[in-house]
């Protein structure tokens, strides 16, 4: 191909790839869009739709007509004290887990900066192990550790003289059950916080800290007025990401408390919606709970997007 022909085809100096057919990007996008449309967008629409219907076992099997009931599912939720207690459980549990995760992750990130490199590698490898453990197997191990009779924790506690813990069931009481699940959740989610904050601390130029020190700032003052503001974007991201995880929690609660605890004392939104739909055949009501969860997370997601944009992530 001759050079003049090339320049003739490139008015305005645009790359050749961009000019070829308007349809071309859509051909490449088609498979992904097809799958996402069918498996994410359409179900999301269906979720909202079903939440406006009286949809139970009779309707599913076709023995009763589908009835549009508007906001009745939401009204019965609002009138149900159990729903409010579950919502409270979800928010309280998520808040406690987020605070603990951030405290543990943040403290260990600071500790990591002061360690000899090989010790730091050992600590990060251990954290990586906790991080990688699937929710199902993590729950299994923690349940085993806290098993009433065969668990290590009760045996050790009884061994050091706390006889009351021999055969003590951690999942029987509402608060110890939440505590046990929370411990597992913090165990497997603090590594993300630790690693991200550690990277954030490493990214702070040492000159800034040096300058503050030469100006006579104390360590506490440096932490408060120099390090924390510079860590803000990273802090924001780990906080919101942790909130999203802990509000969405399902597997750990489901497995460790046997589907929501005794008389549903440990239910959180996702497990509650699941049980309403698949255990009580209240699909319409379950969908309404799903919509509430989605809206809750959508709000948090918007915050996340804003913080991402502020930290300079480009689209």
């Amino acid at each position, binding site marked *: 191909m001759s050079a003049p022909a090339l320049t003739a085809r490139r008015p305005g100096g645009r790359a050749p790839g961009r000019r070829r057919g308007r349809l071309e990007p859509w051909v490449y996008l088609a*498979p992904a869009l097809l*799958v996402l449309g069918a498996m994410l967008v359409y179900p999301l629409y269906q979720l909202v739709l079903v939440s406006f219907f009286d949809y139970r076992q009779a309707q599913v099997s076709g023995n009763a007509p589908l009835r549009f009931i508007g906001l009745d599912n939401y009204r019965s939720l609002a009138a149900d004290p159990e729903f409010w207690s579950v919502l409270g459980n979800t928010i309280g549990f998520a808040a406690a887990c987020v605070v603990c995760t951030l405290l543990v992750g943040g403290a260990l990130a600071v500790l990591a900066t002061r360690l000899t490199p090989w010790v730091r590698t050992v600590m990060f490898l251990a954290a990586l192990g906790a991080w990688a*453990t699937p929710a199902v197997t993590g729950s299994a191990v923690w349940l085993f550790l806290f098993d009433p009779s065969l668990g290590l924790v009760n045996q050790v506690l009884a061994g050091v003289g706390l006889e009351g813990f021999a055969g003590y069931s951690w999942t029987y009481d509402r608060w110890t059950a939440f505590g046990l699940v929370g411990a597992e959740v913090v165990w497997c989610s603090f590594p993300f916080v630790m690693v991200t904050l550690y990277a954030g601390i490493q990214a702070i130029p040492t000159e800034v800290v040096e300058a503050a020190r030469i100006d006579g700032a104390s360590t506490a003052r440096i932490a408060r007025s120099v390090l924390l503001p510079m860590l803000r974007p990273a802090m924001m991201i780990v906080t919101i990401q942790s909130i999203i995880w802990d509000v969405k929690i399902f597997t750990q609660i489901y497995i460790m408390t046997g589907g929501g605890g005794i008389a549903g004392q440990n239910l959180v939104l996702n497990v509650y919606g699941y049980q309403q739909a*698949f255990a009580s055949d209240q699909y319409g009501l379950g969908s309404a709970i799903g919509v509430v969860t989605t809206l809750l997370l959508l709000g948090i997601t918007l915050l996340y997007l804003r913080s991402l944009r502020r930290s300079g992530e480009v689209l």
Partner: protein
Amino acid sequence: MNGVAIEEPGPTRHAADGTPPAPPRAVRTKRGRRSGGLVRRVRTDAAGLLVAAAVAFPLYWMVLSALKPRAALEAGDATPYTLEPSLDSFRRVLFVDGFGQYLLNSVLVAAVVVVLSTLCAFLAAVALTRYRFRARTTLLVMVLVAQMVPVEALTIPLFFLMRNVGATVPALGLNHLGSLMLVHLAFAIPLAIWMLRGFVAAVPRELEEAAWLDGASGFTFVTRVLFPLVAPGVVACSIFSFIMTWNDFLFARTFIISAQENQTLPIALLSFFKPDENDWGGIMAGSVLMTIPVLVFFLFVQRRLVSGLGGAVKG
């Protein structure tokens, strides 16, 4: 893991013979300072190792309990080591309880999801980075939002969708592995697009022009030149898709209702939980089998975890 080694500020700064306005309590002999720093360093390193041991302990206990003889486990033996490790639990789980089949199912679902999702995501990433068109930014924001959709809330509509799909194509309906492949394909694609986007964008445009000059069509360029060049990104995002699919508990629990032979690992593990007579050796052996692949893959992608992408991967 190879974080930047932090320079010990104490001794080096002291050696520089400037006269910084040091607070009076910092005035000490050279030797006193150094030994003080050493003590402190040993103390923080010890704390780091202690943390590492505590964090890794549940994993250690999992492996140990899987290797302990069954009799010792059922007697509540709490010794933190075993002198007669046995593979009995693994044998029992794999050959008596049919774990081999479930392992195979999990591998099959994950493999199909990894291949298809990476393919769809790669093509979509090409369209979103190498072409300019009006809907581009909107689509990118949608991809980001899609990652935040609480898929747990979509269980109900997806359940009915799969039931309808199964009426026409049984292999993709409820009780079949196809249903799990379909939904996880959709869940994996948004993150995969987001990850691959950067890799595709990094390939210089000159390469595209060169390929075009050599007579390659757009599609040939994408498959023959671009794809091999973004291979590292493809590997990374394959691993993330694998982990997400492998760890799934909720959808396997919901979709595979009665077909025992089509269960995946997490559900098989759950079926080991029996009131008051848990086969802990079996549960721990199954947990080890399920955790090892994820752990290995985590080691591969550990560098990528820091960049904030890790936030997306947690069941």
